[in-house]
């Protein structure tokens, strides 16, 4: 045994796993370097009314958005006018990755965010400068410290029919859907309510007051953080998932058990 080991090192041949180790090291180095270099710093202290910001936003807009929305956001065949949409809608659409749209279809899908927070705010400042519209939410409403019970009631009345009582999302017609709200940032939830993106209705501050919106956000944070007391939620979509589980796994186990009980011992 010792002789065989000596032979391997003396012959000067590479260990058979040397290639694998080299590739693994290379992947590790590349991955670490990529994450190190691509960290987008979220510290964006951007003044939305300064001309420099608006100009930077206009440049970004012209490069990324004007193809569908027009050079002055007046709209084209491919995209609606953004005049009057306000900073809130830009921050929501770009900040969640829905815009720039990947393809025309029934629904704009969430994708990896293409712009840094600073760039998003610059574009928001540009669109906001075109005409008055819903602005970015006040941070006092985004803390998640509102009345959770009231938020739950409001959510059930206004939101649960599309987004599901546990905010797990739901289907609409012809390929559209209401997405899950779990893990969505408080600012994006507020902005979505106030602007009514895509087919979601508009819940302006006259319909649901800012404090009520804060309560709804508190409710969403509550169900996000708290464990489900009943155990596995199975996606919180109710009878379909639970029925699938019981009919296939539950009943399967019971049938298997019955077969075992009545079978002869070997």
């Amino acid at each position: 045994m010792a002789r065989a080991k000596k032979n391997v090192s003396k012959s000067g041949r590479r260990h058979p796993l040397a290639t694998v180790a080299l590739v693994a090291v290379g992947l590790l180095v590349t991955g670490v370097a990529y994450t190190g270099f691509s960290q987008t710093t979220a510290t964006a202290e951007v003044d939305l009314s300064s001309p420099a910001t608006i100009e930077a936003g206009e440049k970004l807009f012209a490069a990324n958005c004007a193809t569908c929305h027009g050079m002055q956001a007046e709209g084209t065949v491919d995209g609606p006018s953004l005049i009057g949409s306000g900073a809130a809608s830009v921050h929501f659409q770009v900040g969640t990755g829905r815009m720039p749209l990947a393809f025309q279809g029934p629904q704009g899908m969430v994708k990896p965010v293409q712009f840094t927070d600073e760039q998003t705010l610059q574009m928001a400042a540009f669109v906001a400068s075109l005409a008055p519209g819903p602005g970015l939410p006040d941070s006092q409403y985004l803390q998640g410290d509102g009345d959770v019970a009231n938020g739950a009631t409001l959510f059930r009345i206004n939101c649960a029919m599309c987004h599901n009582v546990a905010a797990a999302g739901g289907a609409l017609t012809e390929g559209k859907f209401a997405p899950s709200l779990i893990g969505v940032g408080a600012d994006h939830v507020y902005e979505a309510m106030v602007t009514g993106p895509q087919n979601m209705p508009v819940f302006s501050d006259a319909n649901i007051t800012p404090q009520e919106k804060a309560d709804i956000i508190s409710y969403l944070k509550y169900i996000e953080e708290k464990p489900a007391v009943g155990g596995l939620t199975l996606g919180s979509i109710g009878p379909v998932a639970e029925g699938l589980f019981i009919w296939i796994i539950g009943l399967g186990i019971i049938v298997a058990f019955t077969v075992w009980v009545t079978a002869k011992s070997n």
Partner: protein
Amino acid sequence: MAEAAKYNGSEGAVVPAEGHGAVAPAAGTAVIATDAVQNPGLPPHRKRVTDLDPKVEKRAERTVYTLFYVSIAGSLGAVLAYMFFPIESGDLWDIRLHTMFVGVGMTLSLLAVGIGAVHWGKAIMADHESIDERHPVPSDSATRAEAVEVFTLANEESGFSRRSLVRNSLIGALIAFPLPGITLLRGLAPQDQDPVTLLKHTMWEEGIRLARDTGGYGVGGAIRAADVTIGSVFHVVPENLSQATNLLDEKAKAVVLLMRLEPEKLKERDERKGWSYDGIVAYSKVCTHVGCPVALYEQHTHHLLCPCHQSQFDVTDEAKVIFGPAKRPLPQLPITVDDEGYLVAQSDFQEPVGPSFWERLK
């Protein structure tokens, strides 16, 4: 008979019928074929692995008593879990841990004893086949004669057949007996209200303001026309809902969805032109199919989707059905604005809300 059956190709004993003075069963009206299939008897007895190998038998025995010990551990574990995972704090994690461990303990205690018992019965207990003969069903003739005698005597002594008036009046009394029960049972249902009238009218009347629905028994503030922006949707109840005697029943009929569209998008027939206000329209939320609330409003397509059976209604075209099992459009509530700018109803719905019923059009 038992001796002969013993060598019937099996080692199982045949247990003869006992009791009732073992009488051979009568053939009755059965057709006895001469070339009938012969009774093949029991298949040869196959020894189990626990019969053949004493080591395997020992292992099976170990498994069984280990399972029973696991069951004891599970029962004790459930008791300990109940004591050491308290839920007084009300914290959801505490509750979840408590129910999980108590449940695991109880499951283990029951499952282990069951599996152990079944394994004992299958693998360790004696497993030779035996046959219990079915004893003949009819009693012997002496018992039958006795029974007939008892009945005849009872009939004679009570006079049931002879005294026809007594017998018939008893039958009449027994038939009449449940009648008060049935009558009183009907009395549990509402007496003085005609369901047709109830379904045809809702709380909406001329001048009643549209108010926000705040859930359950609550009624929120009245809604101004200026509050309703294009693309918004409001969940509406009548402002005077809290004065209703059967609040939830009245709410179930009176719920309304309020939406605003661009006025040029609305296709209204002439009679209904006054029913909307500057692009603001109000429709009943109760689906005309089976009655679920139709509240899924798609702002751009102006479609209302009912989540139960996926009926779709087009808000631009008087909530006409464009898909799904509903057959009638949603009833529209005529609205206008009062002198303070609040939205008010002009009248009740012009047709009953909700699903069809027999007397709906009367």
